[in-house]
């Protein structure tokens, strides 16, 4: 069987249109450039007597208009390809682009729903709503949401399993049909081809989104919690504590990141328990953060402290113990208590062994390698966050509302967390978006070096690395994850730009 074509049955009509639009765009661009060198300018606005503004179009304006409409034409073609892919029957008619877009159907539905709802209610949604006044921000948000929905609906989108091998498909080009697919109940084609082991590139990319989008935001969030918990007191109180922490932060920042990662995954260091100790410290800070946040706010309302703040903190503490130390005090207490009561019988022996190796009831099981990656990313990012927070605090603490809080006898932590932190949120949200992007790249780099992550993992970084070896002969396996990584980071950067612009307009 022949591989299916890229553009399917729509290709013969749409490809020339798209090509013409692209040619027109570049032609208009070159003409515009020449005219602007010749000293021609855009038309000056004319103020009418009724205080409206109108323009008289000149040649420069026409080239600009041509560029604008050719971009619209290309976009329209892409939309038709996507719709055509969804609506047309049969893989041959859909083509590769159509096939891929048909697989992404849940993502399209999710995106359309998100945008329609958000734009409809944007005036009530604060900063998030204002994002929809900004084209750049909307594009960024769209790209990010695309990958988030892909991660959510990954099993529905992927055509094959992430590690399913069809050995006949090794290094096959995009659109190759899977032999005997119908008999084995598999999807009929490898849409973006197969990799060196005969796995489906498209499906691995889709599952890779899941990997990237779980680690990066959570690791960034932890880095923020750590940075904020240390940056607030350093900026607010100053003095020796500030000097010390800033010095440590500078030390960490001065250390080469990649070398640090290599060190952390070295077996000797892992065996010595360094990553676990680091996790123990880094993961404890968010728990402290939440407790102080709640306590300082509801200090004067013992009811809220007793029924809300303490339970939440205890639950987080359990989660912390279970995640970092794989320790569950309840299980530990019951097993050792029963084991102690009935010494010398089989039940108690079983209980005592269970005490040693059990799965904690509360706690997120993290793969050892993943924990190292996580710790390393938090460790590397938190000093930068610390410095941003500290700088913001140094500015905001001189405001009168902080003095007002001091003069009514508020404690330092209330002031830091409820008077200062909310007003530092603008730059922090922007940095958060950018930092998810950096973390994604960092994770990709780590995967590329084969550090920390499982070699089988569909993680974009490791996939790019695997494809690297045969790049000159078979460029198709590493390209999709590379483009995916690029579009996600681009989306995050655009989103951050949009947020920054809109938050300044307030």
């Amino acid at each position, binding site marked *: 069987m022949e591989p299916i074509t890229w553009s399917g049955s729509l290709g013969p009509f749409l490809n020339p249109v798209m090509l013409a639009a692209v040619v027109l765009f570049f032609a208009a661009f070159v003409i515009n450039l020449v005219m602007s060198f010749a000293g021609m300018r855009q038309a000056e606005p004319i*103020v009418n007597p009724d205080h409206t*503004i109108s323009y008289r179009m000149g040649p420069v304006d026409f080239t600009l208009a041509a560029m604008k409409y050719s971009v619209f034409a290309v976009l329209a073609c892409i939309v038709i390809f996507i719709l055509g892919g969804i609506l047309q029957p049969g893989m041959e008619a859909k083509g590769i682009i159509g096939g891929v877009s048909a697989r992404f159907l849940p993502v399209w539905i999710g995106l359309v729903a998100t945008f329609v709802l958000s734009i409809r209610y944007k005036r009530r949604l604060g900063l998030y709503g204002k994002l929809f006044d900004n084209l750049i921000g909307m594009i960024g948000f769209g790209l990010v949401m695309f990958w988030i929905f892909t991660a959510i609906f990954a099993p529905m989108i992927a055509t094959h399993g992430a590690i399913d091998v069809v050995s006949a498909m090794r290094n096959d080009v995009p659109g190759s049909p899977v032999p005997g697919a119908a008999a084995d109940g598999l999807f009929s084609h490898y849409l973006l081809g197969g990799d060196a082991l005969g796995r489906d590139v498209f499906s691995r990319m889709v599952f890779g989104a899941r990997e990237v989008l779980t680690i990066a935001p959570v690791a960034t969030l932890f880095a923020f919690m750590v940075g904020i918990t240390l940056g607030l007191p350093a900026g607010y109180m100053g003095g020796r504590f500030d000097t010390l922490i800033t010095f440590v932060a500078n030390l960490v920042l001065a250390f080469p990141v990649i070398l640090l990662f290599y060190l952390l995954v070295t077996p000797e260091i892992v065996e010595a328990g360094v990553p676990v100790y680091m996790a123990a410290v880094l993961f404890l800070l968010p728990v402290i953060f939440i407790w102080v946040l709640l306590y300082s706010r509801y200090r004067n*309302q013992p009811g809220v402290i007793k029924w809300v703040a303490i339970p939440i903190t205890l639950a987080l503490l359990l989660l912390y113990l279970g995640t970092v130390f794989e320790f569950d005090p309840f299980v530990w207490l019951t097993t050792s208590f029963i084991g102690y009561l009935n010494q010398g019988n089989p039940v108690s022996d079983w209980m005592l062994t269970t005490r040693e190796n059990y799965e904690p009831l509360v706690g997120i099981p993290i793969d050892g390698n993943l924990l190292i990656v996580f710790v390393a990313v938090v460790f590397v990012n938190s000093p930068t966050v610390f410095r941003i927070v500290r700088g913001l605090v140094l500015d905001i603490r001189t405001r009168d509302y902080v*003095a007002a809080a*001091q*003069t*009514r006898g508020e404690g330092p932590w209330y002031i830091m967390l409820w008077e200062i932190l909310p007003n530092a949120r603008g730059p922090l949200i922007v940095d958060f978006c950018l930092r998810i992007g950096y973390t994604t790249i960092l994770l990709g780099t780590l995967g590329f070096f084969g550090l920390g992550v499982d070699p089988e993992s569909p993680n974009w970084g490791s996939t790019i690395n695997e494809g690297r070896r045969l790049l000159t002969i078979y460029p198709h396996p590493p390209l999709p994850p590379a483009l995916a990584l690029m579009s996600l980071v681009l989306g995050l950067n655009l989103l951050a730009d949009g947020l920054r612009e809109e938050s300044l307009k307030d």
Partner: protein
Amino acid sequence: MTTDTYDGPILEIENLSISFFTRLFEIPAVMDFSTKVMPGEAMGLVGESGCGKSTVALGVMQDLGVNGRIVGGTIKFKGQNLNEMSPQQLARIRGKEIAMIYQEPMASLNPAMKIGKQLMEVPMIHEGVSEREAWQRALEVVTDVRLPDPERILDAYPHQLSGGQQQRIVIALALMANPSLLILDEPTTALDVTVEAAVVEIVKDLGKKYGTSMLFISHNLGLILETCDRICVMYSGEAVETGSIADVFDKMRHPYTQALFRSIPLPGADKNSRPLVAIPGNFPLPNERPRGCNFGPRCDYFESGLCDESDIRMDTIAGDDRHESRCLRFRDIDWDAPIRAAIEVEKAEIGDIVLKVDNLKKYYEVAASALFSHGEKKVVKANETLSFVAREAETLAIVGESGCGKSTLAKVLMGLETATDGQIILNNKGVESTPIQERDTATVSSVQMVFQNPFDTLNPSMTVGRQIMRALEVFGIGKSESARRQRMLELLDLVKLPRDFADRMPRQLSGGQKQRVGIARAFAGDAKIVVADEPVSALDVSVQAAVTDLLMEIQREKKTTLLFISHDLSIVRYLSDRVMVMYLGHVVEIGSTDQVFSPPYHPYTEALLSAVPIADTSVTKEHIVLEGEIPSAMDPPPGCPFQTRCRWKKDVPGGLCDREVPPIKKIADGHHIKCHLSDEKLAQMVPVIKIAAE
């Protein structure tokens, strides 16, 4: 180019309209504005913030940014239309023919360039003179702006000079090219009163010396009176009245001008018998201007069917020199009618002593280096032996310029800092060494503060109601959330804000409204003592009166002691019972308002009184300009703190002022002065402010 023999008007603006354009609509900033500045004439442009006075200046400079556009009218400079000039022609005129001085001196100087270089650039670019000649010229101009040691100044960087000196350099910079027109946009707002007085003096003298015409933009009517020949009052994008200073100040013919004068505290106003009259309502937003007269909705003389019908033109007032008013009814209004009898209120009885400060000292130790603390330590004496008492229901004003230690005093009172020495007795308890964390809730809630900057006083990310409720929570008032909410709404009533403001965010409020919320928050725990740190100085004139009156009213009702920190002596005279004048951490004079405002004075008080611009043509002032700058508190002069700038120093025999800090001398009952001057000398002092008999 016109020759130097041009003798028509320097600047002639006719029917100027300037608009700013957004994506959605046009915002008219200035409408139908006309004015004429003759050679050597100083024109004052007054109005509240947002009235378009700075836009006019930018329009003259043809520097409106990307969104701004002149949509009508002409701006003629020496007969040439600036609107039609090419960028090259404009570049020749800007800086050479028209110079501009901005509010913030540090922002107008290049911090990376020496003063001399920046000054020399001007003639070198515009006239192509040699470097040596430019240096000579710079030296001359720096001497003209009365800076000491001009050679050293020319060799300094901007950050090495004080604010007052920087502003003088900016003036020098403007004068370097010997311009025909000088535009001053609030040139002294960022400066202290005595420094302001000196700068204004220079501007006036140099204007005369160089024959420069001036466009002086300010919100301060007193300053305009001192510097200008003619005045133009603007309101919401329009000139509402223009004429000579004497005509507009004494025979105003526009209701807004009249309301403006009634809302500022002039000598003679009194908080109980002749209170300020605040202008009702709010300044209209540019896109919500009413039909017809912009001032209509706030005007006492508004007549529907007439004032809200059509656009109103400027109309000449017969008999006066180029005196015009934008009012349809100015011929019908009885301008000499007395102010409608305000309800005379009973002064609250001054009660027992609630706060006693005795020999309070606050020193800060400043280490030479932050990292290595064993370096040399310097001591900043922020407060030096302060002693005073404050009684129930009394207003004690604390007056002084920046760096005099008034804010430190407030901090020590509030418990944000602890005193180095001395005593503060509050509710019969010594609190001088109890930091705020260790004070009990009752003490904390009984001393509260109102802050200066309305845009900074509220947390921008919390609703107004929540912020007041947080104060109630901390002070332990109200048993439940709903009880506290009820109390919060009552507090909003107290400061005369509508109850639905509770759920608004601070950014939705105007400056005056924010300041009211700040007052409500301060009174949340029924404060006995409220420290008000310049609570109205950042507000517009018409709003100031309303907020001041609100404070006074709450004080009368709650019998609160008000410590009113201010540098504005007009408002202090209007509302305080007693005044305390501070200089470099010392109380130099304390007494009742009448005692402090009439001789004998402390020499510093005398200078302060003379420096305050008063917007009343019937007032004549003794002219005292303080030489030099306020010494740094790190390095105070030996002996009397004021000796470096005192004009009476020569009258004290034996150089006593250089050696000893003067003792506190009792002049009359409750009136104390810290000065070496003998009683005879003090008795010779004449009043600084004289009101001409009417």
